[in-house]
């Protein structure tokens, strides 16, 4: 049976269609979830897409974490549901305390969109098991508030526990501490990533096909996971 991957639409979500397309290209069935509906409709995994949820006039993700759907997602994530937060989704996961730290304004204060090389460092997560350790991938980054920060103890722990999923290589686009581009929770089912793998799934529209690995990873993970 095809895996069903939920893609949440908050008011102000922008890359929800792209995330759904990536899920489809990876071979799964995208299921659109609505911010106001706490029902997860039995999905096997969830993607929180990029965008500006609720306008993000307040701290990014600060309102979205209180959306009805997030209550269900937080509970399910604690029970092992694979959750990928991309950009705004990463911000929401931090606000929801599923991941440590926070995303702040880019150090240079500009929105920045460029094709970015990342090094995948943790391949044991639900979303990165299709990669090789140390593999370099090319994926677009585009954000205004993508500067990852946490206190030194948290950063040390993330590194010690192998929870830094990806780092920026060849230039840090936003000033993130220790070049961190993506992290995971202790269980490895929740991943937050600032760059946009869903924009690197078609040769015609992306700089590479490297993003597809995140979505095929979760399918592999679901097959291997106990039902």
């Amino acid at each position, binding site marked *: 049976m095809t895996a069903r991957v939920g893609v949440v639409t908050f008011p102000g979500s922008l890359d929800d269609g792209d995330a759904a397309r990536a899920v489809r290209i990876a071979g799964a069935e995208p299921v659109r979830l609505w911010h106001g509906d706490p029902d997860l409709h039995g999905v096997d995994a969830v993607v929180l897409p990029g965008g500006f949820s609720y306008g993000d006039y307040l701290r990014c993700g600060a309102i979205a974490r209180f959306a009805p759907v997030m209550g269900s997602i937080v509970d399910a994530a604690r029970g092992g549901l694979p959750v990928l937060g991309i950009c705004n989704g990463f911000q929401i996961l931090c606000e929801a305390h599923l991941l440590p730290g926070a995303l702040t304004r880019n150090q240079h204060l*500009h929105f920045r*969109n460029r094709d970015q090389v990342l090094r995948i460092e943790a391949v044991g997560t639900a979303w990165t098991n299709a990669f090789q350790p140390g593999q370099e991938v090319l994926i677009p980054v585009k954000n205004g508030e993508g500067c990852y920060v946490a206190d030194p103890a948290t950063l040390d722990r993330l590194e010690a526990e192998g929870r830094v999923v990806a780092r920026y290589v060849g230039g840090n686009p936003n000033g993130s501490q220790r070049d961190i581009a993506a992290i995971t929770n202790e269980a490895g089912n929740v991943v937050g990533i600032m760059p946009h793998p*869903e924009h690197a799934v078609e040769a015609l529209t992306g700089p590479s096909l490297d993003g597809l690995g995140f979505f095929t990873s979760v399918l592999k993970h679901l097959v291997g996971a106990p039902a």
Partner: protein
Amino acid sequence: MTTHPDPALRETPGVVPQAGPADDWARGVDTVPRAAGTPEELQPYAELGLRDDEYDRIRHILGRRPTQAELAMYSIMWSEHCSYKSSKVHLRQFGEKAPPSDRLLAGIGENAGVVQVSDELAVTFKVESHNHPSFVEPYQGAATGVGGIVRDILAMGARPVAVMDPLRFGAADHPDTARVLPGVVAGVGGYGNCLGLPNIGGEVVFDPCYQGNPLVNALCLGVLPVDRLQKKEAAGPGNVVVLMGAKTGRDGIGGVSVLASATFDEGSEQRRPSVQVGDPFTEKLLIEACLELYDAELVVGIQDLGGAGLTCALTETAAAAGTGMRVWLERVPLREPSMEPHEILASESQERMLLVVAPDKLEAVLKTAEKWGVLATAIGEVTAPSPDGQPGRLLITWRDQEVVDVPPGSLVDDGPVYARPMREPADLILLQADRAETLPRPSDPEALRETLLRMIASPNLADKTWVTEQYDRYVLGNTVLAQPEDSGVIRIDERTGLGVALSVDGNGRYARLDPYHGTKLALAEAYRNVAVTGAKPIAVTNCLNFGSPEDPGVMWQFAEAVRGLADGCLELGIPVTGGNVSFYNQTGAAAIHPTPVVGVLGVLDNVADQVPMGFVPRPAGDHDQLFLLGETHVELSGSEWAWVTHEHLGGIPPQVDLARERQLAELLAEAARVGHLSSAHDLSDGGLAQSLVESSLRRGVGARVVLPERFAGGSMPFVFLFSESAGRVLVSVPRGHEKAFTALCAERGVPWEFIGVTDPASGALEVHGQFRIGLDELREAHTGTLPRLFGGAEAARVEVEATRTGTTTVLPATAEQPVDVDPAEVAAEPIAQAGAAPAETEVEATSATSADVADAPAADDAPADEVVADEAPTDAAGAAADAPAAADPDDSATATGDPDQPSAPDQR
């Protein structure tokens, strides 16, 4: 939903006032009965930009003096900005000369032109200006410029899918440019990014003529199923009028009538409240809500609220249908409860749409709005035309007081139309005689190498990544090509690969030297930029940025530009589908260069066939062959080289041959289709040298170029590399295809020349016998300029203030050096301007044109017989005053300050 008030009230405007005048004023409302009873009351029409004869006409139409609210409505609807009163007589050429097209589903006069691209799909696109607000308040001015054009596209029934921004600023190193540019770029990005629209191209141009008057144009592209096309007609008496979106506030009050239609000089600070404030989040919700309404077929008519706000939307929708309308103004949700009727009617608060809904669909409409968290309020209803066949009337009450009773068509269609006096600027002949071909040129390899490095680092030719990486180009996942490519290419049908290519171009210097051919050159460049991707050009939009129409010299430039564009489109066989005129772009008496910005849209049956601009990496030993298509002449006048090297502007711009452009486009489409092209790149500003550098740096693939024999000696290598002759394209052809490709060129009658090979291994650009420059050195020169100018800490500080406060870019920078301006004097300025406006029927003497002479370069050594005198006839006048509406109401802009003393003080 509601009942009518006493119909007698609105049918008898001449009725004796029910209450005494003093009572009405005490309540703050000037009512229709009161207006009828106090014919002698003085009204501030001149302050609102209306002339004596225009005011008399309003009184004649109404049979009484207008109420305060009515006066506000007429003043904004009859402003240059909304009425196109100076441009109408010229713009109708776009219709008269339009080549036949069976693709056009909606044309000029609609919110945006709609072009069918397949059996099921149509696209709509339009470019609009937001120039003056962006000078006063760069962040919000630019942001709301994007928001406004997006709503135009939305109103046609389309999903907006991409934006582009042609931007023009003063000198790159002028301190005020460091205030304006970062704010504008952040505003364009801030709004477009938050709306989820990829920014796929545009322009960033610097020229001192834009110092006090930057040009911020915004283009939006939308896609719709053919059967989802929406109408703006408020049809069907009894239907409900619904206002959806943001609350109405005082922002943008007078934005149209004060900011856009009268020149003022000092005190832009005081005008800040007139600039609207954008809320892209609300606009995003509005888009989704509207699209859901369209798909469920819940609306009869729809119109966006842009310039002139509710006034424009109410009168245009009613006038389009010939119906009347009954509006209860107190139902409009307000941000500030103290707003008065005329303020509500004039407010340009952003993110609002007006819907016309059948009563039985109202509940479903309100439910959809609620789902998306957008306000939707029934504020009125459509009323029947008069029994005698006359159109209905627009009747507006405010807390049971009748404040407006007008024929809606009188505001929309019966505005003044002027055939303003025109005269070729007196300095033009001297300017054209001062040819850049006579300037000293580099003639040895070392000088040529140095020239190339200097040119590619000059602000207009330098890499624009610093700007464009602030825009999201990936969102929606359909961007196939984006800047710095010649065109943006968007896939619009994932199933079939159908896509469109879009380019916007303009060259103010060419248009200054010859507005007729300069406009054709802009058209040719945009057309060629679309063609090099392999797309077939099918439609044109435009944004005509000019100085004051009251200056006969400017009016002549405008008429010539319109004539050039209309003629050009006829020659190319593609129609103008819509556009925008922006007048009053000047600083004091000095107008900007006439700057027609032309957008061309093309279709690609399969975006997979698209041709990019960059040379393609090949495995070791392999390479592509380089061909230059078109002919290179000694054409340096108006060129980037003349400007960068000699600060020279003079002569005749390059020749333009649209028949050849058409042949070239057809060749490129065919060559792309059969796979002859690895890359194709248009030649324009900076000539072949610029294209070689851009194509090399795009993917880091160098090239070896040989000079054709006739370009071998003296300064001819320079001419080959830097001439700006039109109709040329640099292509790279895979090995094995060259014979078939050149045969195709011959068959299509396109001149071609083999000029070298790509050199993937060399890491350098080499021009045989002249120079060899490493790609790293080229990249450093090309990419360093903008970060150096705008990437500093100070620019960043200004931007962060803008985005944090959401309103103010100017404050942090200007607070350090307050301007010494008397507020009373500033407030009085527009009055003086409006009052001083000359009567259009009078033939003006040379006073106004003399302004242009001031910046004419001395015509020193150019022999008079070199002047080409047989171009651009100067007798473009004689247009009738009863022209039909020829374009939709849009933005126009005004100038501020003096070029040498910008009203916003320098930061540094």
